[in-house]
């Protein structure tokens, strides 16, 4: 079957070595020799300006883009020898714009599409779909036409459709852009439960607070290269601010306040409150 995985393990480790990507027309290096290792079960956020290479990087993880130079390995297997269909069973990628993906006449058919492609059927399929709809707050909307859902819920639908594929790695391309407060909360919950199931979660986002609060590791990209890589505490600490500013990013407000009050590195609300003391 076209989606069969040649390797042994269900748990997935991702690695890129000297990854360079040059788009055919531009000649510009969208990725300039990126070395990245993501262990199974990690929660990683990738931040940076538009054009810094974030989307280009994650598209190499499921084979949509192939390296110009360098290597991508998934669970030790070189991705070059694998088709996108095969990689899709390990790495689920949710696109930023749900309208570039949604085609079915009902929420149910839309969410079934991914797992069906991977060969799921019967009870297994039904369960995967129900779980995904529950997680994204769309339970009860099975028969609804996706275009009758508002923008925020369509984004959650796109998320559900990839969640139902039950891939060990989940990649989210800007899940927060254009999302409202409730939707953001849902996304947070989905990430937490995916992580608690042992799945690897990688997300691209512009929302620094969301990044600091939901991810243990933050990668900052600029001009096709990784310029910072570490915990939120480390990446949003005062001594990294110049590097952040060089790519037009600002630390979350909690970090800025913490710095102003001389409380050390406080990237999240909770860490700031704790450091504040009574």
């Amino acid at each position, binding site marked *: 079957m076209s989606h069969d995985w040649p390797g042994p393990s269900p748990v997935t480790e991702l690695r890129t070595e000297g990854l360079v990507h040059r788009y055919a027309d531009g000649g510009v290096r969208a990725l300039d020799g990126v070395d990245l290792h993501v262990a199974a079960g990690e929660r990683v956020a990738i931040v940076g300006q538009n054009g810094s290479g974030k989307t280009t990087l994650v598209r190499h993880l499921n084979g949509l883009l192939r390296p110009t130079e360098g290597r991508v390995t998934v669970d030790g297997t070189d991705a070059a020898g694998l088709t996108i269909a095969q990689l899709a069973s390990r790495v689920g990628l949710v696109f930023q714009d749900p309208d570039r993906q949604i085609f079915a006449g009902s929420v149910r058919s839309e969410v079934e599409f991914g797992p069906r492609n991977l060969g799921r059927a019967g009870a297994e399929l039904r369960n995967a779909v129900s779980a995904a709809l529950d997680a994204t707050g769309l339970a009860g909307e099975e028969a609804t036409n996706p275009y009758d859902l508002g923008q925020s*819920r369509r984004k959650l639908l796109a998320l559900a459709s990839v969640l139902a594929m039950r891939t060990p790695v989940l990649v989210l391309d800007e899940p927060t852009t254009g999302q*409202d407060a409730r939707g953001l909360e849902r996304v947070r919950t989905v990430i937490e439960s995916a992580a608690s199931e042992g799945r690897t979660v990688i997300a691209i986002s512009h929302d620094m607070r969301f990044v600091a609060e939901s991810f243990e590791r933050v990668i900052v990209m600029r001009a096709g290269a990784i310029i910072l890589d570490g915990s939120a505490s480390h990446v949003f600490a005062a001594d990294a601010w110049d590097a952040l500013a060089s790519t037009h990013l600002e630390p979350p407000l909690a970090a800025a306040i913490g710095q102003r009050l001389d409380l050390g590195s406080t990237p999240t609300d909770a860490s700031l409150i704790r450091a504040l003391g*009574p």
Partner: protein
Amino acid sequence: MIALAGVGYRYAGAAGPALLDIDLELRDGEVVGLAGASEAGKTTLCLVVSGLAPRTVGGQIRGQVTLDGEDVDAWPMHRLSQTIGIGFQNPSTQLSGVTDTVFEEVAFGPMNLALPRVEVVARSWAALDLLRIDALAERDPRRLSGGQQQLVAMAGLLAMRPAHLVLDEPTAQLDPAGTRMVGEAIERLAADGASILIAEQKTDLLASICSRLLVLDGGRVALSGPSAEVLADLELSRLGVAEPSEVRLRRAADAAGANVARLAGAFARD
């Protein structure tokens, strides 16, 4: 001044109304914010205020929309577009797509109004100047960043010399640099005395520029009043609106028994 009195609106073929019983006033020189969960009616309200609903979008409208006291029900869209400009979320669909330079793009509106050439040129430069993007005049609008395209779109609207500006989530699809660029431009316009109705999810942005705020819920006005008051309202989260950062942090500190005064001191230094 634009005023809506008892306005309701239903999209063509929709089961129920998208807006109900809306009373709204946008006075000259005021910046009014519009908040609410997705599907609460923010975009619909923007379309109604600008006149696109029902003229271009179809559907049925109830109640009264007046401009300086005059009912605009019979006004065609091209007449209204000279008084009220509307900007949208998606930077690239607002570009005409047929111009090769930013200058021509901004001139598109005044050209359509058949103004004398001298006037078209003067207005275009004034708009570019106001938004500080004169340097982009010769660039191809299709090759600009999202934030830059949004500013070009706004310049295109300003060149129409509208008395009022409606902005529907202008920073939603932008990256941090773009958000800052557009946010600052809007702040300058507001400081300059522009009359703006702005819908946004980013309550911090709304807190910094709006004097008044409306929160929509299910097509109705749920909260309305001075922005500081509305943004401190405890109902906000239930209505699907994020609290502004200051409010959120203060409340969290309070709940944890932490030193709120010290925290407040840090905010004051802003």
